[in-house]
């Protein structure tokens, strides 16, 4: 019974995604009265859309699992996921919007006027997108395996097919309304079972869960994790500075009409995410109460899905489980399609279109290339996900954030706030940051968990990679003043001047 309900919920979510992707534009109203002005996307709607696309399987399943597994230290994780937007708000939201860039490579080109930096940024966008897609596929496998008992690969295959279909069909582009709705669906799917579980807990009169000190006290070293303070601060740094480098987040900022709207949107995003992230700790604590230990071979990522079945008997539990399974699928489908869309766009624009246009004699808008890119954008992370099954969802996401924090954060923060950034400095920073954080990730994956400081440094590389990349960028920029773009001052004026100030035209345009 639980199986069939959950399967129905998951199928419903998948079909909805495909249908919406296929219909796409038809959702926008057909009116014969005019008033374009009233139709710009409001900051609040856009904030819901950003949150809906941002809250992934890692948030829906992974955060609760990690807190359940490792204790109160991990309460910093949801804080970090939200805090990233605060940094985005203060540092880059409005200037980024004023730059007119649609993607990160666009920003790199607008700021530095260099095709090399643009190419590097494009490669990194694809890398980060793929790294972030992998855990979405893993989450799909987990959720489906748990609720239906299907083999691991089925879940990720379903997600891969649905996402590739939706993106390739040309729908699933920036449909703001749909993504905004996704946020509220996810919030409801996580909140309703949580409130039911809390109510039952209060009624049953059961006290606090019986947990060890290592779980309930902050920063207690334990085997395999002997530097909890370093680990936590490194993770926080990765999340704070990594958010601005996520390809699917930044693309949505383009929808804001101006810099002020970009800031308002970010404030709303922080509020919406803050509300959502109150819920995963509830599952973690109740999980400790009802499931003091997990059976061998069951991953802590599944705690959210297991809980209702343990607490509520009969059909009620089945309905709640189905709701959570559907919510988890909605979470990973919306994030995965957002990411796949961003990766597809970059793959197509930077790598496929120039080649195809040579082959097809200039008619590069033919749709074939885009579909090819969509398939590539989905197949690669799908294959990777098959090989890295043993790594937890939130860990892989952590590496994606570390890579973003060590590459795009220096480029964007220095790009927005420092006139002295040179092309050579940006290239050096991107290369050093990318090499350092990817090699740390590869070593951790290949060598398994190392103990002591090496293990801590390699498993959470952001705390040294990001400063290293910043320092490299600054030092190389200082050493190569000749490669500072000549129009930097003019661009800086444009990035930082509020829209209501009308600058003399001669300063702004050539």
């Amino acid at each position, binding site marked *: 019974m639980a199986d069939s309900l959950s399967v129905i919920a998951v199928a419903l979510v998948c079909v909805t995604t495909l249908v919406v992707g296929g219909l796409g*534009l038809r959702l*926008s109203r*057909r*009116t*014969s009265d*005019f*008033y*374009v*002005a009233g*139709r*710009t*996307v409001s900051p609040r709607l856009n904030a819901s859309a950003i949150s809906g696309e941002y809250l992934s399987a890692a948030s829906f399943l992974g955060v609760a699992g990690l807190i359940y597994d490792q204790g109160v230290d991990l309460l910093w994780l949801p804080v970090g996921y939200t805090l990233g937007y605060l940094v985005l708000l203060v540092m880059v939201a409005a200037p980024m919007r004023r730059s*007119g*860039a*649609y*993607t990160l490579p*666009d920003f790199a*080109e*607008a700021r530095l*006027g260099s095709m090399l930096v643009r190419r590097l940024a494009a490669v990194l966008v694809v890398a980060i997108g793929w790294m972030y897609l992998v855990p979405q596929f893993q989450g799909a496998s987990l959720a489906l395996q748990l609720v239906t008992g299907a083999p691991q690969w089925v879940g990720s295959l379903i997600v891969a097919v649905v996402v590739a279909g939706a993106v390739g069909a*040309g729908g699933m*582009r*920036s*449909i*703001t309304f749909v993504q905004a709705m996704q946020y509220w669906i996810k919030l409801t799917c996580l909140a309703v079972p949580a409130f039911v579980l809390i109510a039952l807990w209060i009624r049953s009169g059961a006290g606090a869960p019986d947990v060890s000190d290592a779980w309930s006290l902050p920063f207690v070293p334990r085997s395999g994790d002997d530097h909890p303070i370093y680990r936590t601060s490194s993770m926080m740094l990765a999340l704070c500075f990594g958010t601005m480098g996520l390809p699917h987040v930044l693309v949505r900022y*383009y*929808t*804001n*009409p101006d810099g002020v709207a970009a800031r308002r949107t970010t404030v709303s995003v922080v509020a919406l995410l803050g509300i959502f992230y109150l819920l995963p700790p509830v599952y973690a604590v109740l999980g400790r109460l009802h499931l003091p230990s997990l059976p061998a071979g069951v991953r802590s990522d599944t705690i959210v899905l297991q809980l209702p079945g343990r607490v509520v008997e009969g059909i009620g539990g089945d309905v709640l489980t189905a709701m959570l399974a559907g919510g988890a699928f909605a979470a990973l489908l919306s994030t995965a399609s957002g990411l796949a*869309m961003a990766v*597809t*766009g970059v793959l*197509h*624009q930077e790598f496929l279109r120039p080649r195809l*246009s040579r082959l097809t004699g*200039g*008619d*590069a*808008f033919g749709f074939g290339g*885009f579909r090819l890119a969509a398939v590539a954008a989905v197949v690669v992370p799908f294959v990777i996900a098959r090989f890295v099954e043993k790594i937890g969802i939130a860990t892989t996401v952590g590496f994606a954030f570390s890579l973003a924090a060590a590459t795009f954060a220096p480029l964007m923060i220095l790009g927005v706030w420092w006139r002295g950034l040179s092309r050579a400095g940006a290239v050096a920073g991107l290369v050093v940051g990318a090499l350092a954080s990817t090699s740390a990730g590869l070593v951790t994956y290949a060598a398994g968990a190392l103990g002591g400081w090496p293990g801590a440094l390699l498993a959470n590389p952001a705390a040294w990679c990001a400063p290293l990349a910043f320092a490299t960028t600054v030092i190389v920029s200082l050493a190569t003043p000749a490669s500072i773009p000549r129009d930097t001052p003019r661009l800086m004026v*444009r990035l930082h001047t509020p829209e209501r100030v*009308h600058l003399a*035209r001669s300063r*702004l*345009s050539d």
Partner: protein
Amino acid sequence: MSPSFHVPTAVVVAGAMLLLGLGVWLAGRGRRRGFLSTVDRVTYSTLHTASLASRHLADGLTPDAADRAGKHLLTILGASSVAICDAAGLLAWTGPGDHHSREAHEHAEPTRTSGAPTVLSGSEITCSDPDCPIRAAVTAPLIADERVVGTLTAYAPTASAGLARATGELARWVSAELDVAELGRARTRAMEAELRALRAQISPHFIYNSLGAIASFVRTDPERARELLLEFADFTRYALRQGGPFTTLAEELRNVERYLVLEQARFGERLQVSLLIAPEVLPVRVPYLAVQPLVENAVRHGLASKEGIGHVTITARDLGSDAEISIEDDGVGTEPELVRQILDGQSRADSVGLGNVDARLRQVYGDECGLVVETAVGAGTRVSFRIPKYAPGVHAE
């Protein structure tokens, strides 16, 4: 790891394959090179260097361009140093012997006044440094538009006949490149002038018809007449504004709305308009007045000459990194050949707007972003274009 898969073996095999591939590639390269005679190779390398230099000369004779092109010109000439001057002074000195750079403008003086190449030897160029290679100079004029705009001076230990000949020929080649650069600038100026022309070209018919329509409401519905007049004022302010070349799609569509309100006052129920706008593309930057002329075209050519109700549909779609805007009418349509002539600029017809919008889109975004017109006699017309959400150098005021 399954026992059938031995990692060291795999690494060795992969390495061997790579080495083999590299060897084959290198051998192939060597053989290809073997077919070239020395003369061919020299010719090709000279042509290659020249193509590198010509890229820098595309901006005309600026210090920056002269500096970058100088390097390549020096390679072609095989002289010790090269100096490029314009009428005002030295633009760039490439090569050793910097201490002579102050005299370079003076060395070029005779050529600048006479327009003929000159050769200076040991008596005119003196140097206290015995190792200095700057002992003789050959100067040739750079002529653009039949005027001496600068000089190219090659410095060498001795002034050979070969150097004099090479300098003269190279100067002639640079002159041709400068002419091409001037042509490019002239084209840009023409484009700007054409944009200004389009801006001033709110069609007289439209003004006359709008005012007529407004006048008809003055007695019967003064409130509506007042609103229409305000729309008309806003429309003209937008169309005649003195701003940058770009605006947002939202602004442009707002102006289209004003235009349509005025046209509807005239056509009444005969003109049905639907807008299908994805809100995500409203912030996209478009060339100013890129949509309105197309809508005007649809209304004028599609509907005005038709009987009964006419529909105009304006669609803006989000295509990820691009946006597509299309204007469709179910009017009388046209001969595709005529549209082709308009877009090629061969026929001026009355659709100046169509050709102009097409030219501006191509100029800003490249040839693949021009207008696409689908039409046939009696089958209506659909005009669409596709623009990237971000293009370097494109930003609204």
